[in-house]
């Protein structure tokens, strides 16, 4: 075995994809549309969110095209507002929130806990249908002329001063919210009630812990978004006055309720990605994750603390200084568990046997970019700096570093890592490594200049800007085209690999974890018999003993 890769594939001349697996078990459209199999639902989700990712990405391309020149010359300012609003809505609600949980999480959680399916398969399917319905409503909104309030729907702009499709967008997000709630609910029940014998909480892979924490946020936070959107719709249609100062309401009430969800939402988006990184870093340094308990508890701590920091999005909006003080302090605290994870991954790497396959490249990208994004978040959590940096490109850069440099890289890492398990085939390694590097370079070129733009004072959500900002904007747009190539490549080669990729076998990465001990792709029922978990998580010695046993028995 080469020292530069841990990949161990079966003999390609004799290897075959197992004839009976979840993809081949039943045929026909209805067997997919009425499935209860979590793996099929995960596949349906993967296709759907990729579709929306490209719509959101196209909108991003339009934004960067417009911002090549200081004037609002590609599109009118109102149109530009619609473009960045739809970009935000689609990327947040239709890509990032469901990304890892609904695809990789749906696929893996039952496998990782040793169960035959999630606890509520029909609810799982319902969750996908709600997502699709919400997606259709969002597309309708775009076709009907879009909405230009910004994805944050700030009142009273969204309720009183604009005449775009706020109601239909609000209702679309309402439906998508319930899709998310049902996914989270399913995960919590499964993780509590369906662990196989011997699978104690502290033997679970850390991916499960991260998704558990994210699920708590989904279940408790999303309903508040739902009622907030209902109130916005009522305000627009019936003029009830709850957000209207003239009628006695408070526009800030909307923001409190909106951010009560939307701040935990960012943790919903990032926590599952952190779970992926834990798995990938361990596998590609051949070492158990350093400080398992700390990483597990930090996930839960992020979830709990994450509920109490929302007003740091509202420092300049008119909340009292006392409230700003309290929320700023809590924001400093919530950064600690995230940092703990970074330290633990770094210590996992230390003295590990590191190799640089594609998932690991994305993981390295994550660790660096998320650290930068997270640190800039702490800068913004201090009220003094926030007053100057908020609503500028500094914020845009901050959240793109954590969401794109962080979460999207983690998502791609996970997709590549579990692709062999999902499809039975390996993706082509060289081109995927190239794509990872191209993405990293493109990302930095796109978003790092935006930190500088923000500190120099360029406001966000503006189609036209002062000419002195043009050079940095041109760098940013150039980077965006590189980034676009980096994201296009995986679609091409992953699709290619479905037919022409090398046969992966059960455990090409020689990873621990129950999902790697069964065939690729898995059977519909996952395990012929429910396994008994008799070893700790990330137990590479156990894995070595298994392999020795197998070698001994063949001879």
């Amino acid at each position, binding site marked *: 075995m080469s020292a530069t890769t841990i990949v161990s594939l079966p003999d390609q001349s004799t290897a075959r994809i197992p004839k009976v697996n979840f993809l081949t078990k039943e045929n026909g459209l209805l067997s997919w549309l009425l499935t209860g199999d979590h793996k099929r639902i995960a596949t349906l989700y993967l296709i759907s969110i990729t579709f929306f990712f490209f719509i959101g990405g196209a909108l991003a391309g339009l934004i960067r095209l417009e911002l090549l020149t200081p004037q609002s010359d590609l599109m009118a300012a109102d149109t530009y507002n619609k473009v960045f609003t739809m970009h935000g809505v689609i990327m947040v609600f239709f890509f990032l929130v469901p990304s890892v949980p609904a695809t990789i999480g749906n696929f893996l959680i039952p496998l990782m806990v040793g169960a035959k399916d999630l606890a509520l398969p029909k609810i799982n399917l319902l969750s996908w249908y709600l997502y699709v319905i919400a997606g259709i409503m969002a597309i309708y909104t775009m076709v009907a002329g879009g909405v230009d309030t910004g994805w944050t729907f700030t009142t009273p702009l969204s309720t009183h001063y604009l005449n775009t499709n706020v109601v239909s967008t609000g209702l679309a997000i309402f439906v998508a919210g319930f899709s998310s709630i049902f996914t989270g609910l399913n995960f919590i029940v499964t993780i509590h009630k369906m662990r196989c014998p011997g699978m104690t909480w502290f033997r679970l892979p850390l991916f499960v812990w991260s998704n558990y924490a994210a699920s708590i946020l989904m279940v408790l936070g999303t309903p*508040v978004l739902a009622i907030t959107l209902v109130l916005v719709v009522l305000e627009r249609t019936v003029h009830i006055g709850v957000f209207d100062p003239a009628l006695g309401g408070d526009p800030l*009430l909307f923001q409190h*309720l909106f951010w009560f969800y939307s701040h935990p939402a960012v943790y919903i988006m990032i926590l599952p990605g952190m779970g992926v990184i834990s798995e990938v870093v361990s596998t590609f340094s051949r070492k158990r994750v350093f400080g398992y308990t700390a990483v597990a508890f930090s996930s839960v701590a992020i979830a709990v603390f994450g*509920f*109490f920091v929302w*007003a740091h999005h509202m420092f300049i909006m008119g*909340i*009292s200084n*006392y409230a700003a003080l*309290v929320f700023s302090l809590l924001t400093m605290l919530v950064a600690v568990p995230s940092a703990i994870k970074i330290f633990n991954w770094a210590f996992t790497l230390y003295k590990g046997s590191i190799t640089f396959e594609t998932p690991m490249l994305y993981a390295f990208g994550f660790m660096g970019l998320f650290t930068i994004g997270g640190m800039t978040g702490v800068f913004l959590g201090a009220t003094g700096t926030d007053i100057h940096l908020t609503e500028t490109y500094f914020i845009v850069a901050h959240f793109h570093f954590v969401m794109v440099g962080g979460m999207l890289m983690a998502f791609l890492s996970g997709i590549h890592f579990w692709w062999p398990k999902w499809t039975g085939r390996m993706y082509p390694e060289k081109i995927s490594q190239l794509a990872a590097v191209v993405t990293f370079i493109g990302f930095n070129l796109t978003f790092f200049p935006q930190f500088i733009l923000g500190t120099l004072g360029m406001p966000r959500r503006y189609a036209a800007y002062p000419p002195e900002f043009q050079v940095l904007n041109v760098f940013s747009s150039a980077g965006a085209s590189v980034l676009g190539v980096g994201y296009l490549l995986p679609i091409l080669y992953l699709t290619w690999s479905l037919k022409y990729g090398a046969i992966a076998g059960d455990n090409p990465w020689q990873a621990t974890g129950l999902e790697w001990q069964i065939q690729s792709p898995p059977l519909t029922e996952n395990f012929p018999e429910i396994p008994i978990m008799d070893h700790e998580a990330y137990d590479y010695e156990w894995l070595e003993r298994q392999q020795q046993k197998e070698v001994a028995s063949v001879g």
Partner: protein
Amino acid sequence: MSEPTGQDHIVSPKTYAIVAVALLVLTATTAGVSYIELGVFNAVVALAIAVIKAMIVVLFFMHLKYSSKLTKLTAISGIFIFLGLISMTMADYISRAWGRW
């Protein structure tokens, strides 16, 4: 995983009847108290009675008293987050009138 489920302990009709009567009595009480002038304590008493009513519904009608620790923890965490929403939002509204500093 042999935790007590709602199924293991069958709550008797007698318990249900006592709870129902208690709820009706408390309803009459809270209605009656609202006719008495207690200033700010009107709200306090009304909410206190409502909380007691809710608690006996949760404990006995919803079997929480006989449920697993996990179920009890779930109910408590829901209340905790709800109170967090209310109190942290109120932290802003209450302190606005305190002036700039």
